[in-house]
């Protein structure tokens, strides 16, 4: 099946930040299924080891590596380790992110900073470090996890820092894409709607009115459902695509 070959990632090396839980775990597993060797880069080593083992037990290639994206020094160290153990990085998924629900007037300064430290600065550290290497290697695909929160204001919960941080991610995606396109380094974003994870308690009745009923599809997604989108963005199937934001939200942003 030649067209499916375009989605194949056999022999490629991928890194997923925050790759040991929620969406990141699903992304990592989808990349493995498409043939890639994947590094789960996260703070909680034990959890990463468990997911890596689960993947390995089923015949896939996955390793656990330590990474706190807010510490720039750790990023290069992590990339060195991945390169040594799996090969040079072809695909990098900037997935690590945090979100706090709080009205703007009540957001403490440190909470505001912590959101930007992870969602924007952490993503920047990773993108810059891996981008340098991909430019040297003359190619690569970086996928930033944005959000519908960059396009609309979520409700009923207030999350001003998260929303602003994801808008920054979308525009940074376009900036890096335009700058690095001549080096064959593609940079795109995935903007999910509501997905059932620890970060988004979609089953809580108090969120149903807006999170579910406001979405044209009248449902939330499972993390697994978004895996193929990452495979599409990571692979040659999207070879002419850069600077794009792929919205997968059950239609949420339509209304």
């Amino acid at each position, binding site marked *: 099946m030649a067209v499916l070959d375009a989605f194949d990632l056999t022999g490629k090396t991928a890194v997923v930040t925050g790759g040991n839980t929620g969406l990141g775990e699903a992304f990592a597993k989808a990349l493995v299924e498409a043939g890639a060797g994947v590094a789960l880069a996260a703070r909680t080593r034990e959890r990463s080891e468990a997911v890596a083992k689960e993947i390995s037990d089923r015949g896939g290639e996955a390793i656990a590596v330590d990474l706190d994206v807010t510490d720039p020094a750790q990023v290069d160290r992590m990339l060195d380790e991945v390169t040594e153990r799996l090969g040079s990085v072809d695909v990098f998924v900037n997935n690590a992110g945090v979100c706090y629900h709080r009205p703007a007037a009540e957001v403490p300064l440190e909470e505001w900073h912590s959101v930007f430290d992870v969602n924007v600065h952490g993503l920047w550290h990773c993108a810059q470090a891996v981008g340098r290497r991909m430019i040297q290697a003359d190619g690569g695909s970086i996928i930033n996890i944005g959000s519908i929160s960059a396009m609309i204001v979520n409700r009923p919960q207030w999350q001003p820092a998260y929303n602003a941080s994801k808008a920054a991610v979308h525009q940074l995606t376009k900036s890096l894409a335009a700058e690095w*396109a001549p080096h064959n380094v593609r940079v795109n974003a995935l903007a999910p709607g509501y997905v059932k994870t620890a970060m988004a308690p979609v089953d809580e009745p108090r969120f149903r009115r807006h999170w579910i009923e406001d979405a044209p599809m009248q449902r939330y997604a499972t993390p697994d459902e978004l895996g193929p*989108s990452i495979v599409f963005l990571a692979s040659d199937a999207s070879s002419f*695509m850069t600077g794009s934001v792929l919205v997968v939200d059950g239609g949420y942003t339509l209304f």
Partner: protein
Amino acid sequence: MEEFSLQDRVAVVTGGGQSLGLEISRALNRAGAEMVIAEVNDETGPDVAEELDGTFVHTDVTDPASVRGMVETVVGEHGRIDVLVNNAGIVHNIPSEEVPDEEWLAVISVNLNGVFWCCREVGKAMLERSSGSIVNIASMSGIVSNHPQPQAAYNASKAAVITLTKSLAGEWASRGVRVNSVSPGYIRTPLTELGMSKTEWADVWIASTPLGSLAEPQEIAPAVLYLASDAASFATGTNLVVDGGYTSW
């Protein structure tokens, strides 16, 4: 990776006998789909249908009766339509102040009305089964104005396709039918052949595209397959831009 498979699905591609439509048809077929080439060109349509072991149905998308006939034929022969790709499109490069009425109407008739007639007729059949995926080929021209060549009708028609896609997606989302669009940048097809032969156009096109080249039709087809298949089961109303970074600038 089975999410990308179209095994046992019936797919209709308008303009499927030529250019981008041909590569889309080949891609969907390679993913397992049973192909219907809905094409106005009676020479290329049957050839492609034969190549893909599919069916050719002569279809003029500007004529609602022809579209209705196509849907009846396909549903009659195949029982259903799982995937519709509205690909048929034309472009005229005429300065707006000089565009004759019939040229404007011709472009809108194929690019916008044709998409709606096909969405409406195929949509009905899909809604009956509470299942289906429609992919409309829009264009980055629905987001930005191309230059230096004039093509107001094309640009306006493609913007309309993007918004029509979102409107239908909103209406049909809770009834099992997804509707998305792909917005390509410049692709190497007969549609851009004239422009590429003129240095003053081609130079601007290339220089305005960060990736520095035109897309091959084969580079757009996988995006259509992604949206058509279960790989994009939570995506509806999405406009997937595949433009080599053109709209980043």
